[in-house]
């Protein structure tokens, strides 16, 4: 990570989840900062045990990073301007389990794809509860903010 990490605060009122992690603010500049941002957290369709939210302003990140994360890891994807509509927006991704691999759309090759790791949560159990709930019960609103500890 390139700059001093800040606290990444995630909460979901429906599930009574409120956890703190850490994140490098640099890749998130212009997309996430102080002040809560409410996002719709959806389940990944291809990437296994991971959820994601579209994050406006997260653009221009060069492709790079890792194809696989550990439970608790937070990644960003800068979007693919040449891709289908669903792929063009930036995303923040929360990995909540070990059955996970980033994959490009199957109709565009279905190959492992690299995402940039920006932080992590230590409370993997809460993140897993959130992820499994989203998979079974559908998208949920979460609040995210990046704050100084």
């Amino acid at each position: 990570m390139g700059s001093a990490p800040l606290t990444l605060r995630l909460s979901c009122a429906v599930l009574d989840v409120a956890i703190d992690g850490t994140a490098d603010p640099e890749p998130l500049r212009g997309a996430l900062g102080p002040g809560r941002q409410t996002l719709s957290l959806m389940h990944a369709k291809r990437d296994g045990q991971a959820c994601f939210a579209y994050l406006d302003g997260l653009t221009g990140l060069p492709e790079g990073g890792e194809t696989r994360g550990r439970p608790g890891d937070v990644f960003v994807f800068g979007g693919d301007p040449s891709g289908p509509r669903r792929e063009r927006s930036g995303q923040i991704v929360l990995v909540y389990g070990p059955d996970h691999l980033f994959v490009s759309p199957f109709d565009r090759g279905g190959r492992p794809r690299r995402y940039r790791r920006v932080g992590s949560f230590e409370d993997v159990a809460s993140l897993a509860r959130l992820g499994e709930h989203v998979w079974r019960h559908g998208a949920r609103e979460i609040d995210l903010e990046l704050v100084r500890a």
Partner: protein
Amino acid sequence: MSRGLLVAVPAYDAAIRVELLWADAPATCAAIWAALPIEKPAFHGRRSGQELFVLADPFEPPGRENARRVVNAGDVVFVHLPPGWTDHHPDFPSAEHGLFDIAFIYGSDACVRGPEGVVDANLFGRVLAEDRAALARVCERVWLEGTAPLRIVGTNGA
């Protein structure tokens, strides 16, 4: 008149017709037919892309037949994951018989994958062309709104 399937998702007022491919996958069609009716929650795939699936109660698996690794919108496939595949989910008991996975493919961004990668899928049915848009709508709603009860019954003449 050939025997087919009717897939109902009452929560979304959907009834989707499936042509069974008796000539290409006779053993799989017969096994599924014998297992009807199937009433299970439908889950959206989380590693296979544009796929909806149900896990049927165990039956004698038909073996590899009309197997595909590339699937298309409208395909209906069967995969038997052998005992021991947990799918990382405690609600999917697989220790004794394995998982009996019936999957509905609703878009081109799909590839049937198990916990350890791409698997051979028995292609045994096709959603009728005029019902594919309804299938896609149901699948997107399950993705965004959560699992929904699904019922599969047999029909004479799809």
